[in-house]
């Protein structure tokens, strides 16, 4: 029949078009993912790089070892501490800034938008140099500033208690601009007449924020929360450039520990850690969807 022949031809053409992508996807996405998953169940070490078929299957041993490792537990605790504080802080400040920037005052909007967004596009290495300088205990600007008020600032990056807050401060400063820009776009998508109508009905700014802004901005907030959450669970660059996980492991993160173990050639173990982190990310994202999804 003519119809089915044409359908077959269309089907072939479709596969023809999809093939290059499918192939690339398979080679560069599926194969690495599958092999790292396989790696997580083997005792693969650095010396097995040239003979990856000679590794032993060890079942869930790596996962058991990872979960029982006090250093991984500390890293997991640190990561949760970081996500738990830095995520609400980042989203809160980003929303506040977005609302402020959206409330008239057009002349300074673009200046501030650039100002707050600049850290997002700046290299972490440059950022690290500046922050290390700011946070230096004796010569740093922060402690010099505190000194003017007679406060002796802590040894920010080398104090067990203050190291994580220092990194949270830095990460928030660095990431707030990204969410801010997305939220600002979301705010500008809310029809002005809703505000006008509610104003006629006598709603004040607070009421408008709670009943119009937040509900209509919900999908945008959800997006920002998920993206920030995923990024923060993979907390790596700040400890890598600023503290090397110290002092006393206080800023060691799961991603940094994965990096270290890969460096030591413990491939099986670090692959297992990666999947533990992956599961944590899936769970966090699921929870965020459950909490923030727009009700129908």
């Amino acid at each position, binding site marked *: 029949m003519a119809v089915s022949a044409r359908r077959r031809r269309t089907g072939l053409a479709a596969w023809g078009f999809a093939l290059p992508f499918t192939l690339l996807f398979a080679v560069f996405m599926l194969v690495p993912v599958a092999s790292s998953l396989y790696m997580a169940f083997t005792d693969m070490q650095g010396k097995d790089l040239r003979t990856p078929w000679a590794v032993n299957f060890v079942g869930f041993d790596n996962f058991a070892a990872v979960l029982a490792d006090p250093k991984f537990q500390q890293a997991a605790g640190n990561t949760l501490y970081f996500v738990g504080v830095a995520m609400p802080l980042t989203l809160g400040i980003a929303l506040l800034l977005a609302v402020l920037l959206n409330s008239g005052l057009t002349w300074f909007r673009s200046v501030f938008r650039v100002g707050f967004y600049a850290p997002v596009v700046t290299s972490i290495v440059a950022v690290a140099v500046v922050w290390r300088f700011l946070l230096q205990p004796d010569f740093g600007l922060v402690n010099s500033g505190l000194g003017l008020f007679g406060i002796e600032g802590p040894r920010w990056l080398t104090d067990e208690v203050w190291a994580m807050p220092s990194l949270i401060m830095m990460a928030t400063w660095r990431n707030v601009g990204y969410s801010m820009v997305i939220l600002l776009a979301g705010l500008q998508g809310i029809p002005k007449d809703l505000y006008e109508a509610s104003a006629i009905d006598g709603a004040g700014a607070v009421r408008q924020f709670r009943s119009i802004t937040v509900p209509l901005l919900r999908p945008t907030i959800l997006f920002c929360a998920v993206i920030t959450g995923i990024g923060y669970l993979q907390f790596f660059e700040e400890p890598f450039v600023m*503290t090397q996980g110290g002092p006393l492991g206080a800023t060691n993160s799961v991603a940094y520990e994965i990096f270290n173990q890969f460096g030591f050639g413990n491939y099986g173990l670090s692959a297992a850690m990666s999947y533990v982190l992956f599961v944590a990310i899936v769970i966090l994202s699921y929870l965020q969807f459950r909490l923030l999804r727009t009700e129908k």
Partner: protein
Amino acid sequence: MNRTPRLAVAATASTLTLALALTGCGRSDEAGTTTADSADSISEGPASGAVEVWAMGTEGELLPELAEQFEADNPDVTVNVTPVPWESSTEKINTAIATGEVPDVMQVGTTLMSGFVGLDGLAPTPEDIDSDAFFPGAWETTEVDGTSYGVPWYVESRVLYYRTDLAEDAGVEAPEDWAGLTDFAAGLQDAGADNGIALQTRGNSTALMYFPFYWQAGGEILDDAGEFTLDNEAQVKALDYYSSFMRDGLAPPVLVEDEKVQNFIDGKLGSFVSGPWERANLLTTAGDDFADKFGVVPLPADETTASFIGGSNLAVLADAENPDSAWKFVQFATDPAAQVDWFEISSDLPAVQSSWEDPALADDDAVAVYQGVLETARSTPAIPTWSEIEHELDLIIEQTIAGDLTPEEAAAKMQEAATSIGTGLD
């Protein structure tokens, strides 16, 4: 670029390894035969063909200048130097070794040797190269499990930098033993420094800074049988001594590395331990006049004198395309005369002992102090797992300084951590 032969070599190599694995000659069968035979000898006659060299950091930038001499002596050879940043060198080399796409010669940091040998990446050193010409501590860094896999190229060691003006004010002499160092630091502090001495307290390489003290107390990391011997009197004594400086307020409880040099220049810090590169660093920051304000002396002795020996070796890759000319290049670069030339080009200290008799080194007081230090300087063990063990030890030393562990607990923990990681040798 001649990519094809390289790919062909890589393909042959991987097919070979595949064939070996399929016929049941996997890695597990290699146990007991790790002592590979050294390559017999380097052939006579001039080198030829292309020699690909990877070098890191400053060495990568300056090496072409030395290579020109080699090219002049061997008209048929071209040396291509690729500079590799230190930060990404380990990953890059690991990848190269795994894929077989390797250079012929490579600069390898002394503490990284065993890792690459663990990947079967380096070729054994030919017998022609005379190990006695080098500082013993430097030669040891080329040896993994009894076989040498490279040749020492340049060395560095740790010494004590101190403010001569403060020492004069305090009326203290440069220290020669442990008690002397404590008194010296206290004296510098009395003469107006905020801290008499600075010792590394945390982060990467804390263990490298600490281990000279352990060796001075008579400790060994591995015994003759190759077992870890970290839990002993010497360890407890050294940990207690090392942390006493922080505990007694002679050294900053947590050292901020970024501020060390500036504090020293400002006279807030009386002394610190560092390597040869720090001299140039001080003079660039403070100006050349600062040279008469500080002195350099060997680290103090306890049971024995010991410092840490670092630096780089030159190694030929197991998969090198042009191994014969590669070894000739290595032989050239580590010959006494070329070592002196290299010192003049790069300020890197020669690994060959006889090069130090050259006036270029012998007449320079700041350099000459290293010669004696290097004779007894030691390296950390060349075992494939060392970087992982060092990472654990860094943390244990940090905890001891912070007072979270007693020296006894720390010594036990060091032994436990090292044993559980193992040496990585079959």
